[in-house]
């Protein structure tokens, strides 16, 4: 009896392990090098061009080719940071009630009809390319905003409305998953106590699904924060502090896409854009951590 030498089975095990580990290894190397590249270029603004980090985050003048009164390049990113956060938060605020309503209808009120009718609509919304959203925003939403609120029509309000439609399917489908994951027995328990369907939805189901519903909103916000093309077409692309919801301004992403073709690698103009990319990267990390944190809290409760 030979119990110690390798066989076909052990060789298969070994080969499988090698394939899996090398694939994982390549992915890890890829991710680490992307992170390293963005970080090194993004930090060059502060290390090579000696821009003060604090002034970068709080300055309101964005003009990397000019020097300010301290003799430093004018790279104040606050307008872009503010606009990015404003469109993201406003889009989430507008989208959440609609997404929850659709999800409640699809899961709790009319599962068959709701799913048959709304599922394809949501899938269609996901499938529309962002440049088309931007185009519609530019030709429909911007004139409407201009007509009602005056000004040029471009700005945070138009960006919010475009992003609202874009993140709606994301938030909705994740909310549907969240509600579907609420066990049937909680519904039975509530109904058996004489609660109405509406009381059951409001007090039991939404409460039980809350961690995952928050996660749905955050995924929607992450999508809104990172969206570039559609926003660029309606935001105005002026690196100015927004003075109202209808003043031309710029998000981190739209500033990147607008300027990236006009800069030369290694110059301050280019490095400053990498710093904006670094902020985007850090923010997506924050969104991921939030999702993780809420998921953990949700498990324990």
């Amino acid at each position, binding site marked *: 009896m030979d119990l110690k030498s390798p066989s076909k089975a052990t060789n298969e095990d070994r080969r499988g392990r090698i394939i899996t580990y090398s694939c994982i290894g390549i992915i890890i190397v890829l991710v680490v090098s992307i992170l390293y590249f963005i970080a090194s270029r993004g930090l060059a603004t502060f290390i090579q061009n000696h821009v003060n980090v604090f002034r970068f985050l709080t300055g309101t003048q964005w003009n990397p080719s000019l020097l300010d009164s301290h003799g430093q390049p004018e790279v104040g990113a606050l307008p872009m940071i503010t606009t990015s956060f404003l469109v993201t938060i406003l889009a989430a605020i507008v989208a959440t009630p609609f997404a929850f309503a659709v999800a409640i209808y699809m899961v709790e009120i009319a599962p068959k009809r709701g799913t048959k009718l709304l599922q394809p609509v949501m899938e269609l919304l996901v499938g529309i390319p962002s440049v088309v959203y931007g185009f519609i925003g530019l030709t429909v939403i911007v004139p409407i905003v201009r007509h009602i609120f005056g000004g040029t029509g471009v700005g945070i309000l138009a960006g919010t409305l475009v992003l609202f439609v874009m993140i709606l399917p994301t938030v909705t489908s994740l909310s549907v998953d969240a509600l579907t994951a609420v066990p049937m027995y909680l519904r039975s*328990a509530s109904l*058996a106590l004489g609660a109405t369907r509406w009381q059951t939805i409001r007090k039991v189901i939404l409460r039980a699904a809350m961690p995952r519903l928050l996660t749905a909103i955050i995924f929607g916000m992450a999508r809104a924060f990172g969206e570039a093309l559609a926003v660029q077409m309606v935001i105005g692309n002026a690196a100015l502090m927004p003075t109202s919801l209808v003043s031309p301004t710029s998000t981190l992403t739209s500033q990147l896409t607008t300027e990236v073709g006009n800069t030369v690698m290694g110059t301050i103009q280019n490095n400053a854009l990498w710093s904006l990319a670094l902020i985007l990267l850090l923010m997506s990390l924050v969104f991921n951590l939030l999702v993780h944190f809420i998921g953990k809290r949700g498990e324990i409760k």
Partner: protein
Amino acid sequence: MENNNIFAKTHLVTPQEPPAITTDNLQVYYGDNHAMHDASLSFPEHQITALIGASGSGKSTYLRSLNRMNDDLATVKGKIMYHGIDINASDVNVYEIRRHIGMVFQLPNPFAKSIRENLTFALKAYGIKKKSELDERVETSLKEAALWDEVKDNLNRSALSLSGGQAQRLCIARSLAIKPDVLLLDEPASALDPISTAKIEATLLKLVKKYTIIIVTHNMQQASRISKYTAFFHLGHVLEFDTTSHIFQEPQVPVTRDYVLGNFG
């Protein structure tokens, strides 16, 4: 043909005590599937009645019909009389029926809320807002369900942190908080260990002084320990209904005898 012969021999008594609920020729259909045939039973007030039978015999389906938990799931025909009212009549308020006829399920199903909120949920939905009254109901129902001593120190902790047996007693307390008249229990102890089961049984024996209890159980020892009457269900038919001692000691129907002797199950 053989099946028809089995179902032809039945032995159903009518208890002497005044009934809390009676069903007359109750039929339940899931679509085309005729899950419950002709169940005519009378449940005496302030007694425990056990419903026994193999899996798929229709006892849970029957129980769920008694407080209309089968609405939207199944078609229920026949009469369920509660205080002279047919609970399936179109002018009956289903939410009020469920307040009077409470239900506890097989798996402990506390809400993802604190212990206190689990108990006050239905009361608040019913419109009770006074804190003193809510507190009083919380304490009373937890004491009735023999859980008060274990949780009184921290009623604000999550109900999901309770053990299985505690959670099930919380679910019983939650049903008691709305002061029902009849308590339906669907295998309330089948997911619990023997010690928790014993606690639940002791609780039920105390509760029966105030409530009418109907319990579905797979556990024949449990039925014989706690119930006064027992109904035997088989393949969607009620074959025998009598006092528990008769069912277990001198069953009249051969299928019942086979079942209580453990020849099938």
